[in-house]
């Protein structure tokens, strides 16, 4: 194994050298950095041309200039010496500074979208695999391919038009016309009926239920003016919490495991108490406080599960902790919702909360909650755009792999020996179905830092993609090389990680080296 890894690392370094040389040459050849000055009629044209020639060292041929860059970049290999020199941009900013900033921005933008895409995509894939060739399967397949094939810049424009401009207009005067309620009700009914099983009768019932529920909800929310001053309140939190408790137990332990169920329900009750107890403290919340509270919640949940659990304590502990985390999430969401009117009314937001560009409202200086909402309103649309576009690959891969697993002999054996369907799916099939996805996820995390060039451009987000595009426009090789280094190293590393992880997860492909 070690020799294998070493061999891979050595190849990676060689690939990096070769590729960086090629990229440098391509960048240098991609344009004329003096283009604007050559056709200039400024009286000091010669002087300007000379200044830029000197700045970019244009009199040295590009293949030689590469080695100058390499000499600086090589210093980055000296550990802890802080001598890293990746050059400067045309505007005189050190590439290392620009890279650090752009990476931070890109990570904020892409992380949520990637995590959500993985969770939602994989769940959809599993569900559609279990309901192969049903209406749900076809519906999900159709939609995920639709979003996959929409150009993202167009999707982004649509999202801005309806998700930001339209929604903000709605918020200015939140009044839902009856026609909208009818349309939403029908849509909701259709979605519900998709999830129902095959018989037409059950589908009909599901349709009615879905339609009525949606219409009633919209009507009530409208009546209560919920859109201007949203919030969950203790009752909704309690009801949702109980629902979550049942759901979590169903998936992790099975409803037969009463101890797990009680542990989870106790967490719901504790959560509700915490809703009152913790809330005053939340006024001065910071990120760290939330993290600490989350850790405490998990510990308490595990404690409750431990105290209640019989011989299989682990299941109860897991279920209780997970329920606790979800309760905490509900409380935090409620808190954000209650802060919403203050955010919308802020003089810098001016009543139009959902943003179409950038990462923050300039000059907004509020509490943790206000700034949190600000980040949310700015990241909402780009995250949605990225999410919708990447759902397809995850859902299709996981569906295919789940289908393959479900037809395996050992699944039939598991069923034959009388295991419950939940155990068969969650424990025997699901875990194995995830193995091929490990490769995909590893690649995507590697590509994550590379940025989403088009999305960043459309949403005016100053991440890695922007850094790359703007440098390319100016034919400015140093920032591009910085970008390439980061993206290239990550791609190679995660490629390696994917292979290693794969061999650990799946004994069948373990490398004998």
């Amino acid at each position: 194994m070690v020799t294998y890894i070493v061999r891979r690392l050595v190849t990676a370094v060689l690939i990096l050298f070769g590729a960086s040389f090629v990229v440098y040459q391509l960048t240098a050849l991609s344009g004329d950095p003096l283009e604007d000055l050559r056709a200039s009629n400024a009286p000091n044209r010669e002087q300007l041309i000379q200044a830029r020639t000197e700045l970019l060292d244009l009199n040295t041929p590009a293949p030689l200039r590469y080695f100058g860059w390499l000499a600086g970049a090589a210093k980055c290999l000296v550990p802890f010496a802080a001598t890293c020199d990746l050059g400067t941009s045309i505007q005189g900013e050190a590439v290392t500074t620009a890279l650090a900033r752009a990476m931070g921005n890109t990570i904020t933008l892409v992380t949520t979208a990637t995590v959500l895409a993985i969770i939602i995509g994989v769940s959809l894939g599993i569900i559609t695999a279990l309901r192969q060739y049903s209406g749900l399967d076809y519906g999900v397949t159709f939609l995920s391919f639709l979003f996959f094939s929409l150009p993202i810049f167009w999707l982004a424009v649509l999202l801005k038009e309806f998700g930001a401009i339209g929604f903000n207009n709605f918020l200015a005067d939140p009044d839902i016309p009856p026609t909208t309620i009818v349309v939403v009700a029908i849509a909701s009914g259709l979605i519900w009926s998709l999830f129902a099983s095959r018989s037409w009768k059950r589908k009909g019932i599901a349709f009615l239920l879905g339609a009525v529920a949606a219409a009633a909800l919209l009507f009530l929310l409208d009546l209560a003016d919920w859109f201007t001053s949203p919030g969950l309140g203790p009752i909704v939190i309690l009801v949702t919490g109980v629902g979550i408790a049942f759901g979590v137990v169903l998936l992790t332990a099975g409803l037969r495991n009463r101890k797990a169920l009680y542990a989870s329900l106790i967490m719901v009750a504790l959560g509700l108490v915490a809703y009152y107890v913790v809330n005053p403290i939340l006024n001065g919340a910071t990120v760290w406080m939330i993290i600490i509270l989350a850790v405490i919640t998990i510990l308490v949940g595990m404690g409750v599960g431990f105290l209640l659990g019989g011989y299989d304590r682990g299941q109860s502990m897991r279920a209780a902790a997970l329920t606790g985390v979800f309760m905490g999430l509900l409380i935090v969401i409620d808190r954000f919702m209650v802060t919403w009117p203050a955010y919308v009314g802020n003089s810098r937001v001016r009543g139009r909360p959902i943003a179409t560009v950038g990462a923050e409202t300039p000059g907004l200086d509020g509490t943790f909650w206000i700034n949190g909402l600000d980040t949310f309103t700015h990241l909402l649309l780009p995250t949605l755009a990225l999410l919708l576009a990447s759902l397809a690959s995850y859902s299709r891969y996981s569906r295919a792999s789940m289908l393959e697993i479900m037809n395996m002999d050992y699944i039939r054996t598991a069923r034959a020996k009388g295991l419950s369907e939940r155990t068969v799916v969650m424990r025997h099939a699901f875990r194995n179905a995830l193995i091929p996805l490990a490769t995909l996820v590893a690649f995507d995390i590697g590509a994550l830092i590379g940025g989403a060039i088009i999305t960043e451009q459309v949403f005016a987000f100053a991440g890695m993609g922007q850094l790359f595009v703007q440098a390319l426009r100016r034919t400015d090789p140093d920032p591009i090389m910085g970008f390439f280094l980061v993206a290239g190293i990550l791609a190679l590393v995660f490629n390696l990680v994917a292979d290693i992880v794969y061999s650990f997860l799946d004994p069948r492909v373990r490398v004998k080296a």
Partner: protein
Amino acid sequence: MRFGRTSKALGVAAVAALALSACAANTGTETPEESTEGEATGGNIRVVEVNAFSSFNSNSSEGNVDINGKIAYATHSGFNYINNDLEVVANEDFGTIEVLSEDPLSVKYTVNEGVNWSDGEPVDGGDLLLSWAIGSGYFNDAKTDDAGEVVSGTTYFDYAGDTGGLALTELPEIGDDGRSITLNYSEPFADYEVAFGTMTEGGISTPAHVLAEKGGLADEDALIELIETAPAGDPENPEERPEVQALADFWNTGFDTKSLPSDTSLFLSNGPFIASAITPDQSMTLTRNADYSWGPEANVDEITVRYIGEAPAQVQALQNGEVDIIAPQASADTVEQLEALEGVTVEQGNQLSYDHIDLNYSGVFEDENVREAFMKTIPREQIVETIVRKINPDAEPLDSQLFLADQAPYEESAANNGSDAFAEVDIEGARELLDGATPEVRIMYNRDNPNRLNSYTLIAESASQAGFKVVDGGLGASDWGSALGNGTYDATIFGWINSGVGVSGVPQIFRTGNGSNFNGFSSPEADELMDELIVTTDPDEQDALQVQIDKLIWDSKYGLPLFQVPGVDAYSDNVTGIVYMPNQTGVWWNFWDWQVVQ
């Protein structure tokens, strides 16, 4: 039974929760009232820029980006500025320009008393002297070879502007009041008005006391002493000047930053606004400079600059009410989208750059008749219709080689220079001039620029009707610039930028053998007039001379100006006072008139 106990516990908890929610539903989640920000009376205006801010020194070659210039314009004051009619307007609240004598030209610049930097230090003679030393290239002694490599000596201050004008002045002395300098020109300099301390170029933007300290000198007096005692740079006898080098090194790069420095001396203001917050590559906030009273005072308390590159993103941000003013890159689509918006005012106009076709005075075009015949076939009206009118409906073909339609003498010059002969396509006239010949014409242009490609296509089609064999010599974006003037083509379509103010750009293009004279135009008469032009300080005489030169150029069948590049800006109904401006300052030119509709 355990079962029972648990359910009881649950029941109790649920009842307790409900009871609590009944009596105390609101106590838990109460948010402290957000204090309303911006308490101010003037309010805040949010303006969009394409490029991101990168330097507080917009005059160095690295910092010379449009956005840095605009920020410098808003945060620095100076002796005059340029208005949207491209006229120079004096700012006498800041200081005065006094012409002591016309010939030899001697100009005295005095800063008013009470004009201060935002750290309380007065703007004084030392600042003026430093500005002069930088803008005149006084210390430079670099010598370069043909390839542009420096062979000896040094260029100290990496000044992006033209040092040619101030280089004509001798070392000035600070006046007795300590707030003035007098520039004595060795020969009259036509553009003296905008050669020094113009707000459009950043005004008086480098605080001498700060640079002195950062450059390792004791104080401002030491800096003044250094400038006044060190000899002028002489390329023949270059010398080491470590002290000047230290100053220049700091000036060249020390003000470059993408975030707000913790050292406030790096962004001192002497203008209406001062930078107060920067989020790198995202936004920048300027707030009112409390002490400022020397010049036009702003209505708004705060200007937020946001950087959005894409035009459609700018339009949607405006539509969503996130920003108040945008000036996107003009295209037919953008204008169409903007005009469809409610509550938005769109302003269209010309920019200072213009496209033109130049004919070489050699090869197939050596014969004036061939040039004239070719010019007769150029469908200028059709080009303007196809390319420009969708963006700027009022656009007309440009009828002068020296003036833009936005300048006062344009009408007179256009009527006089004989441009009306080429207003319409005249295929018959071209055929007559060619007299049966079918010359082959190779046209070079930037193929990657859709406007140029369009122009070429229209011209080629029209010219071939008159018997010209047009060869497509279009080159890619990275190649066409270096092909200029290399003799591989007969005609070329590209763009120039008129400075709008001043005349030093004229000889650069049209004087025999000069750097940007790519087609070999040479007229001894015009050369003489240009020599006179650049030493003429009276604006009316300058105009008269330019009208004559314009006619000489047209008479020699130089080629044709095609159109001025259109520009567009738009603002929401929340703000007023925005007026279109053709030059690089853009909408910022009268930012003090901007107002929030209350």
